[in-house]
């Protein structure tokens, strides 16, 4: 990070001069022209005529570039796909380039997250302005974190936007968008915490793993810190995070119960997309739950769509409406959660078995990885879901889900690309994929075994994407997400409620936003925060399903508020959630508790 800082300083000073651009175009003539034009603008240009090479370069070091310009039509990979991958994983601004000025294509580019769409032949004047996108992106992430942190200053600059939270911290100063808060923290030598620690997915994952290892009851900040072995993290950081985490777990278990109970309600079914559960087949027994979860999972659908997640920018658009919808719907459902929850375990068990077979398909999980962007790999460590292990196994679905999902996630670990594509396939195809999804989820659900089963079951369907950690929340959430995924396909078949299109939009947005969020704030890592906040009811579902990091993202995307949370970093989330305990109650009804959070930043 030091190097980054240094480089950052130099570049920031002269920005936009020296802005590092990666240009991708299969046509050598166009590429050379682009190269010349960009050099004329005094940018630092790297060119490649292969999308795959470009991705490799980006993966190696995301911070090597500030901006990516890519042609739409390329033989080795579709430009839109590259756009998704880059936008999701690396949260870099991407500009599309094409000889085709068809507005439909332009729309597609923008909805996929491109921050601009240029038509060939490109003119110098157009390129002179592209640096604005880099700044804009940084600025956009700032406000969200700010809104999230009601109580805490959103000291972390670039929380939302930057994937590398740690890097952000360091770069805060250099960053043009540096936040005052960050400076303030920096200026205060006596304050123990350096610029606020942003709990990135990565960081949170480590944290959860450490807590898991030590056992929630026995986890002490000092020991957790040692286990995590992260530079720059203080005991105080860990202590406060642990406190939030524990609150989160508690909240999740409450929610899980609610969710379970919720499943039984008839209203819920109407809201929820029953389909998700149904898709599982095995889950039919849990149908009641499923219903519950469906409603809650509405957002999950979004998750499912993560694959196709578009740019982050859209999330705000999407999330709010969806959230609201679900909120209303979920409300009735929640009431019954408690009751159902108890029953579900048994039924769940049955169901869970079957899905397991399908579990092999973790593509969904992987997808979530993709969304988390760089964190996907971390997802393996989503063991964090284990974070729930500390809680009451029976009543804490999260525990159930937590333990399993993480495992699953890791296995899927392979290429994000595959995931994305598979996930997208998953979503698009509706029919078959969802089941896979669910199956994957089952493993997670299994964890639920006990009370969690309900949620687990639900989750399993949804979790496919690694929602697992989230499931702990209330199961419902996880399930939701999974549900969404399934729902996506199922919904088309069944409910009209959350039509695929609806979700796709969300998912896209959700993912992108979530992904970015998750990455940015690392909130994803801790699904807890999300769940705590307002998830009580529906919202938690949203959060839950997502992978810790992912979830946060998704939540935001879906709920609209989630996004905010993510940016705010987990700390904020947790704090907020704690506060909203009361409100969460309300949320349980099916609303996404994070109203304040969710909508604020999103819109």
């Amino acid at each position: 990070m030091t190097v980054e800082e240094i480089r950052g300083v130099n570049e920031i000073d002269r920005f936009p001069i020296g802005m590092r651009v990666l240009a991708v175009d299969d046509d050598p003539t166009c590429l050379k022209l682009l190269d010349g034009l960009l050099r004329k603008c005094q940018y630092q240009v790297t060119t490649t005529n292969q999308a795959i090479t470009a991705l490799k370069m980006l993966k190696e070091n995301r911070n090597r570039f500030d901006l990516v310009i890519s042609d739409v039509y390329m033989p080795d990979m579709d430009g839109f796909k590259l756009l998704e991958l880059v936008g999701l994983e690396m949260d870099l601004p991407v500009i599309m380039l094409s000889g085709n000025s068809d507005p439909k294509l332009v729309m597609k580019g923008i909805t996929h997250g491109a921050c601009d769409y240029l038509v060939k032949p490109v003119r110098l004047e157009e390129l002179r302005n592209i640096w604005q996108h880099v700044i804009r992106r940084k600025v956009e992430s700032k406000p969200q974190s700010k809104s999230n942190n009601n109580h805490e200053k959103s000291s972390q600059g670039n929380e939302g936007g930057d994937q590398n939270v740690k890097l952000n911290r360091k770069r805060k100063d250099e960053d043009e968008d540096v936040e005052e808060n960050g400076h303030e923290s920096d200026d205060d030598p006596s304050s123990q915490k350096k610029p606020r620690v942003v709990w990135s997915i990565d960081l949170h994952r480590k944290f959860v793993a450490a807590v898991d290892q030590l056992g929630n009851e026995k986890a002490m900040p000092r020991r957790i810190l040692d286990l995590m072995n992260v530079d720059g993290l203080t005991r105080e950081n860990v202590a406060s995070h642990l406190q939030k985490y524990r609150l989160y777990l508690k909240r999740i278990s409450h929610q899980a119960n609610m969710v379970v109970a919720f499943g039984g309600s008839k209203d819920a079914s109407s809201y929820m997309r029953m389909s998700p559960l149904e898709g599982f087949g095995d889950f039919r027994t849990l149908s009641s739950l499923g219903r519950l979860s469906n409603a809650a999972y509405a957002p999950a659908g979004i998750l499912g769509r993560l694959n196709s997640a578009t740019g982050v920018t859209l999330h705000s658009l999407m999330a709010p409406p969806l959230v609201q919808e679900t909120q209303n719907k979920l409300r009735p459902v929640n009431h019954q959660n408690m009751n159902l929850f108890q029953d579900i375990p048994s039924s769940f068990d049955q169901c869970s078995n079957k899905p397991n077979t399908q579990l092999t398909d973790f593509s969904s999980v992987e997808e979530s990885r993709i969304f988390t962007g760089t964190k996907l790999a971390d997802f393996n460590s989503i063991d964090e879901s284990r974070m729930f292990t500390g809680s009451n196994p029976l009543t804490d679905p999260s525990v159930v889900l937590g333990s399993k999902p993480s495992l699953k996630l890791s296995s899927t670990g392979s290429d994000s690309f595959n995931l994305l594509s598979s996930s997208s396939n998953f979503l698009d195809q509706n029919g078959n994929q969802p089941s896979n999804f669910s199956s994957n989820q089952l493993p997670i659900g299994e964890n639920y075994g006990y009370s969690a089963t309900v949620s687990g079951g639900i989750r399993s369907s949804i979790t496919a994407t690694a929602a697992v950690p989230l499931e702990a929340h209330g199961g419902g959430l996880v399930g939701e997400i999974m549900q969404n995924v399934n729902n996506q396909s199922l919904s088309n078949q069944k409910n009209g409620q959350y039509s695929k299109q609806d979700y796709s939009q969300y998912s896209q947005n959700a993912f992108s936003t979530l992904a970015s969020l998750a990455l940015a704030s690392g909130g994803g890592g801790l699904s807890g925060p999300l769940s705590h906040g307002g998830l009580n009811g529906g919202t938690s579902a949203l959060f839950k399903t997502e992978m810790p990091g992912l979830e946060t993202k998704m939540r935001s995307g879906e709920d609209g508020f989630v996004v905010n949370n993510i940016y705010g970093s987990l700390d904020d989330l947790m704090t907020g959630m704690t506060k909203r305990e009361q409100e969460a109650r309300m949320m349980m009804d099916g609303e996404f508790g994070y109203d304040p959070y969710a909508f604020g930043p999103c819109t």
Partner: protein
Amino acid sequence: MDRNQMQMHRQIANIRKSLFDQEYLDEQFIQLEELQDNSNPNFVEEVVTLFYRDSARFLYNLDQALEKRPLDFSKLDSLMHQFKGSSSSIGAKKVKIECTHFRDYCNARNAEGCKRTFQHVKKEYTTLKKKLEAYFQMSRQTGPVERACRPR
């Protein structure tokens, strides 16, 4: 600059002007010229050369595709789309116009129209190539010259 050189310069300028007047080239070519500077002294020629080398394969593929029966219009269209993109990058105006006609015929699934237009495309392509080659050669002979007479 001696008289001879001045004449050469004027000649080159005229050739260049006529290329624009006759619409062989458009503003994009000027963009290329603007990118040429001390750090990039032969930028324009490099790009044009690259274009001609690379686009040859498009023409070849298009020729092949046009031989097939029945014609695969979507493939023709996508090939031509790429070729058009390349051509427009160097400012090959007439070539680009013919490409557009070709694509129109493709969309209308007019095989005859496609084939006919393709011949035009090739003709314009070759003509421009010759003219540019002559232009560059002359420019090289007279040495890097100020582009004072560049029409704006």
